């Protein structure tokens, strides 16, 4: 800016020195301004990401207001936690005697929660009873190593009465266990409403008003003027039972995602098995064997186009091809499999994986091609120059050097498959399934689809469950991405 005047050069064409100096001041100002504009863009993008995560986290950790469906006051005069084992046992007995299916409910609780019997074991007990054989309490309980009142030792385990089952439960739990049991099964607290944590911190008034309103409404509904809705209490929707429980579309607080997670894992594993060898094989064929040839050009164009086809189209394809046309194979009936109750025509994990494999195949191929293309030609020439055959060259040099890229691309493709929803909606995985898939020919659901189903539930608390599910999903995807990054770094370090 303050350089001396240019004296030797006659600037016949350019603006004169004075003007140019003025210009340059303006140019520098302009540059500064736009720098901030560009900075703003990136900040906004980052801010969106932040908001995205925030919107989910705030729904996964909420304050909830609860009311008890059975008022504890009607059960006992004393506070429940002060009651003795016996008194709690009585409450259970009384409660279950009062409902129609009480005996069956209690039996299920004993079989599943106390004894931990599998479905098969339960079935076999039922069969033996049907065959007029008495299955005694002692036989089962000693087998499982659980306590039981000795009076019931020779009784048939199926034919016990409510009081007997209650006694068994009482026998197997201590006081606090019984208390929990009473709260869960008898008092049955229900979430009235939930509020994101930020709202709780910033906007208590609305929350209090809403609680009051809900309380008034419930009192009228339940015809119970003493009914109270609790003060907001903190609840994390990320809970262990997300992983251990199946979906329960009646009670959001108990809903788990086990079936969906197992379904996702099955589907992804099968998808990798199908897509990876085919994808890498195709990439090698295109890059190394028919580079530039007419067949390669046709295939290449094809793959590029397929990569841009919306996933829902693959869903439609899968629906028509795998679910319907190839139903015999995808349902497993062609192999004499899947005759059990858990098949759904062609709507099996296999169909979904095949569809998903087709969906991610172009992504894998293109990434693998990119990785293979990035292997310098000089390495191939060096190898050929030493008298290596084509496959020797590919196997010894091209693949090892392209591996990080191929793996990274594959992981990214998998993470896409993991989060993919639309395809499976169309292929028709089932959202209300509670039975874990047992093989490729099972019905199934997957995590994102389950989340979709939860979001579309009318009851608002399912969105909290969905938020928790999303966090789980994101955690898995982030670990996959991190794995891709680590893999890439480790390989690239070794290469150089």
């Amino acid at each position, binding site marked *: *800016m*303050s*350089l*001396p005047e*240019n004296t*030797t*050069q006659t*600037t016949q*064409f*350019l*603006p004169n020195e004075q*003007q*140019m100096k003025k*210009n*340059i001041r303006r*140019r*520098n100002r302009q540059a500064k301004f736009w720098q901030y504009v560009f900075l703003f863009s990136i900040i906004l993008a980052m801010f969106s990401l932040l908001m995205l995560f925030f919107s989910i986290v705030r729904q996964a950790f909420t304050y909830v207001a609860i009311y008890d469906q059975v008022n504890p006051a009607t059960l006992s005069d004393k506070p429940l936690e002060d009651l003795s084992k016996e008194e709690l046992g009585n409450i259970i007995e009384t409660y279950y005697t009062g409902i129609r299916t009480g005996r069956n409910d209690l039996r299920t609780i004993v079989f599943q929660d106390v004894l931990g019997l599998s479905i098969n074991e339960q079935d076999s007990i039922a069969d033996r009873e049907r065959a007029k054989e008495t299955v005694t309490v002692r036989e089962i309980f000693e087998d499982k190593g659980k306590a039981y009142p000795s009076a019931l030792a020779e009784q048939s385990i199926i034919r016990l009465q409510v009081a007997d089952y209650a006694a068994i439960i009482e026998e197997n739990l201590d006081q606090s266990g019984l208390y929990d049991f009473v709260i869960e099964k008898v008092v049955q607290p229900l979430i009235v409403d939930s509020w994101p944590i930020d709202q709780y911190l910033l906007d208590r008034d609305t929350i209090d008003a809403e609680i009051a309103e809900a309380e008034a409404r419930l009192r009228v509904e339940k015809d119970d003027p003493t009914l109270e809705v609790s003060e907001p209490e903190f609840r994390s929707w990320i809970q262990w039972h997300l992983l251990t429980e199946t979906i329960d579309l009646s009670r959001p607080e108990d809903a788990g995602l086990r079936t969906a997670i197992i379904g996702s894992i099955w589907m992804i594993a099968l998808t990798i098995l199908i897509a990876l060898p085919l994808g890498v094989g195709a990439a090698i064929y295109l890059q190394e064997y028919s580079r530039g040839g007419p067949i390669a050009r046709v295939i290449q164009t094809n793959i590029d186009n397929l990569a841009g086809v919306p996933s829902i189209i693959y869903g439609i394809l899968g629906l028509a091809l795998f679910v319907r046309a190839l139903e015999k194979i995808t349902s497993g009936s062609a192999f004499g499999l899947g005759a059990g109750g858990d098949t759904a025509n062609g709507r099996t994990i296999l169909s979904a994986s095949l569809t998903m494999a087709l969906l991610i195949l172009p992504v894998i191929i293109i990434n693998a091609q990119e990785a293979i293309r990035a292997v310098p030609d000089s390495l191939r020439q060096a190898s050929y120059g030493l008298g290596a055959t084509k496959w020797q060259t590919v196997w010894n040099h091209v693949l090892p050097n392209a591996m990080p890229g191929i793996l990274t691309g594959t992981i990214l493709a998998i993470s896409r498959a993991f989060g993919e929803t639309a395809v499976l909606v169309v292929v028709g995985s089932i959202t209300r399934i509670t039975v874990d898939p047992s093989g490729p020919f099972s019905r199934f659901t997957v995590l994102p689809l389950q989340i979709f189903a939860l979001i579309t539930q009318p009851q608002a608390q399912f969105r909290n469950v969905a938020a928790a599910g999303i966090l789980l999903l994101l955690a898995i995807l982030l670990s996959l991405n991190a794995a891709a990054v680590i893999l890439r770094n480790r390989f690239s370090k070794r290469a150089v």
Partner: protein
Amino acid sequence: MTSNGKYALEARNLNIFYGNFRAVRNVSMQIESNKITALIGPSGCGKSTLLRSFNRMNDLVLGSRADGEVLYRGKNLYGKDVDPVEVRRRIGMVFQKPNPFPKSIFDNIAYGPRILGQRNKKILAEIVEKSLRQAALWDDVKDNLKKSGLALSGGQQQRLCIARTLAVEPEIILMDEPCSALDPIATLRIEELMRELKENYTIIIVTHNMQQAARVSDYTAFMLMGQERAGELIEFNQTDRIFTQPADSRTEDYITGRFG
């Protein structure tokens, strides 16, 4: 080195650092006007770094820093209130690989005048013609000014880049191995162009091709990696002295292939 000549550029105790690494140590030299000065030396001796410090192109490298002075018309280019944008206009640069913009030939050359504020189409056309003529490219491209600069051959591209530099009317042109990507015949043409240009411009060229320095330059500076891998100026003299009677034995060793 004549001492009464007019100096286009003068380095005084110039040190250049990348972070903590000193790339060039304590260089002092005076570049005579309207001459071709060549910087030679083995790889990594800092000759490119030194060249790029002459128009503050090094500023673009993160963490680079210059110590000492580079005087241009008595003004230190590394002074506080000096705008590198202004410096680079007056001290142009031609790079190792021809790097025309992916625009038409015309727009390539008009780019500089345009950002300097020249909008008049007629004048721009004049600048383009004059610059192309100076770069000995006019006759080759005058009918194809709308053609992409990338459609030219390597040697023509490099001449286009030179024309583009001339269009902003610099006083000094820095050339960083301008022929290393070209074939022998294109190289020859660029060298002849350089000899024509020195009528009006001061040229400083980095080359790792010793013969090129011998053929085209008037002055030659020989650099070597010294202590701590910092580049040092070993000898600076008229080219024929450097190549027939070098004063420093390291220079003689280098030019006669005894080095290393």
